[in-house]
């Protein structure tokens, strides 16, 4: 196993998939520039050049369709959105065509476009550059939607997406980009719909999506210092959702916290809480708690931004709450953004 950062894992995954499958192309605004989408497309461009790593005009909607049309003719386009927020403009093509293609035409094969969208957590990106849109994408049948939270998953889910015939949306959180972890050297696919048990525990289950899987693990460390054993589950993909793993954990712990980077209302945290209400009712020992951004657009100003995003401490407090404990935690955790390199 090699150690790679999150962005390096993506970069490597792209290169390896392009090596093995000549149909894979990388497309998007600025994929070929010196920044190379925070480093993720740079190696591919250096290796395969402009014929397969292709800068595009600013045309989110048409380009989603163009990728679909290329996929229908056998290509496997990766479409990169430096901010997932720009994908609003492409929703029609993604939700109304790509997601429905196989069903609506009863086609032999879906249109395997892989949409990468980056959630711009960090540095006051504000209301239109730091939303997490996973819950919206995951509402629609026909898509695969994943929110990789570790370097290995970032690579593995990408590899899976590039081998399957289902259009996929991969949302990467910018705050995870410098995170380092073990990553298989080979392009081993990680199947959609299989959760990752980040840490085993017995007192409370924390399901954390995207960055919140990482923050939940940090929260679990802190809880462990107080003798509380939290099980942390990273769903990895929201569609399909591995309900089995979540429910199994719930049966063990009887307590559930759901942490997410997208809003609570009609979001991922609602779905997992609903799962508990539907299928975990008998074993639930305490109310479910959701830990999410506050119910307002993302503010820019630092103290507001810090109040807006959930942190390990918010998760810890929610856990203590459902455990009916009032232990005051001994140490505060450094904010995940402390690692973020300014000025931008």
């Amino acid at each position, binding site marked *: 196993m090699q150690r790679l950062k999150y962005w390096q894992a993506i970069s490597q995954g792209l290169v390896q998939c392009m090596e093995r499958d000549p149909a894979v*192309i990388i497309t998007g605004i600025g994929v070929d520039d010196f920044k190379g989408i925070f480093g993720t497309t740079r190696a591919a461009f250096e290796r395969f050049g402009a*014929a397969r790593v292709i800068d*595009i*005009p600013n*045309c989110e*909607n*048409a*380009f*989603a*369709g*163009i*990728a*679909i*049309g*290329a*996929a*229908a*003719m*056998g*290509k496997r386009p990766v479409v990169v959105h430096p901010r997932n927020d720009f994908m609003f403009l492409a929703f*029609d*093509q993604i939700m*109304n*065509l790509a997601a429905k*293609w*196989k*069903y*609506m*035409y*009863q*086609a*032999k094969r*879906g249109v395997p476009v892989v949409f990468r969208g980056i959630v711009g957590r960090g540095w006051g990106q504000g209301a239109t550059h730091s939303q997490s849109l996973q819950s919206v994408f995951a509402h629609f*049948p*026909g898509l695969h939607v994943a929110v990789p939270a570790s370097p290995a998953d970032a690579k593995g889910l990408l590899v899976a997406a590039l081998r399957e015939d*289902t259009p996929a949306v991969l949302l990467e959180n910018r705050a995870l980009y410098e995170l380092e972890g073990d990553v298989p050297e080979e392009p081993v696919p990680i199947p959609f719909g299989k959760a990752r048990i980040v840490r085993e525990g017995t007192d409370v289950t924390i399901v954390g999506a995207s960055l919140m899987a990482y923050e939940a693990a940090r929260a679990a460390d802190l809880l462990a210092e107080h003798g509380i054993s939290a099980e942390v589950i990273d769903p990895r993909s929201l569609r399909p959702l591995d309900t089995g793993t979540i429910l199994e954990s719930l049966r063990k712990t009887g307590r559930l916290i759901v942490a997410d980077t997208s809003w609570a209302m009609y979001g991922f945290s609602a779905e997992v809480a609903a799962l508990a209400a539907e299928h975990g009712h008998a074993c639930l020992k305490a109310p479910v708690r959701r830990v999410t951004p506050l119910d307002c657009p993302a503010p820019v100003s630092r103290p507001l931004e810090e109040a807006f995003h959930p942190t390990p401490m918010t998760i810890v407090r929610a856990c203590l709450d459902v455990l009916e404990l009032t232990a005051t935690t001994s140490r505060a955790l450094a904010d995940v953004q402390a690692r973020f390199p300014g000025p931008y």
Partner: protein
Amino acid sequence: MSEVQESHSGAVVPRAAERPGVPECELLRAMLRIRCVEETLADLYAEQEMRTPTHFSIGQEAVAVGVCAALRRADVIYSGHRCHAHYLAKGGSLLGMVGELYGREIGTARGRGGSVHLAQPEVGVIASSAILGQTLAVAVGSAWAFAMDHAPRIAVAFFGDGAVEEGIFHESLNFAALHRVPVLFVCENNLYSTHSGLAVRQPAGRSIYERVGAYGITTEHVDGNDVLAVRQAASRAADHCRSGKGPYFLECATYRWREHVGPLWDYDRGYRTKEEVEQWMARCPIKRLTEHCLARGLCTPADVEAWRQEFRREVDAAVATARRSPFPRPEAILEGTY
């Protein structure tokens, strides 16, 4: 390809759609067949057994037939909500279409897609869709793939004058022109988008093809009710695209006879006049080519009548088969989602 194409129902599909340069009669047969299919379906529509909103192309057949006559089987087409004629002209299975409208498993999308989602990839009908402008970009993408692979194929996007107003039209033109992809844009300008005339939708005094020309795309305006002119223009266009010269834009002036969606006539609904409809009906593309062929002795009135009956039999048989054939099983409802 040059062989005769068997449809699902076993009926002979006119060869017009398959061979560039076929004689005029083949074009006439292809138009007659589409007209016959649509008129028959329009009559049957009132029975409320085709439960799918349906946009008939009656009056606009020359565009579909003329363009598809200039294509090869390996070329692909995309359409919008008004897709029957395109689908049939490119060689789509009649039974597949009729079955689809009747919501049967035998339909080309097994009854899941309905009238506005006709597709049959084997003959190059890749997708139709009811979201305005949606498949414009998809056609560009397919053409782009051909260009990347240096394949001698082209992609065609059929759409109306209404789709032109959507942002995706501009984005698609810009990309196609920039990358010089082999896409043929075919705009069927029938003057209306639903019940709105061009005057309330697009700036006055500017034609669509002129605006497109400003992107550096080769454009042509053609009488969309003159199938020979359409075929000729489409042949030029196809050559242009295939020889690496980039996209081509063909605006075809034509007219929808029936209501926007549904089988009825609607000249009494206030948004257009009976005179206007009648004027355009006088310019019927089928009538026009029939007269052309008769005048030149290429066929006789009896031939035409025989063809009509042939197609009527074909469509009746397709309808009968569709009606006899099973609906999808409700238990199979999730099939194809992934």
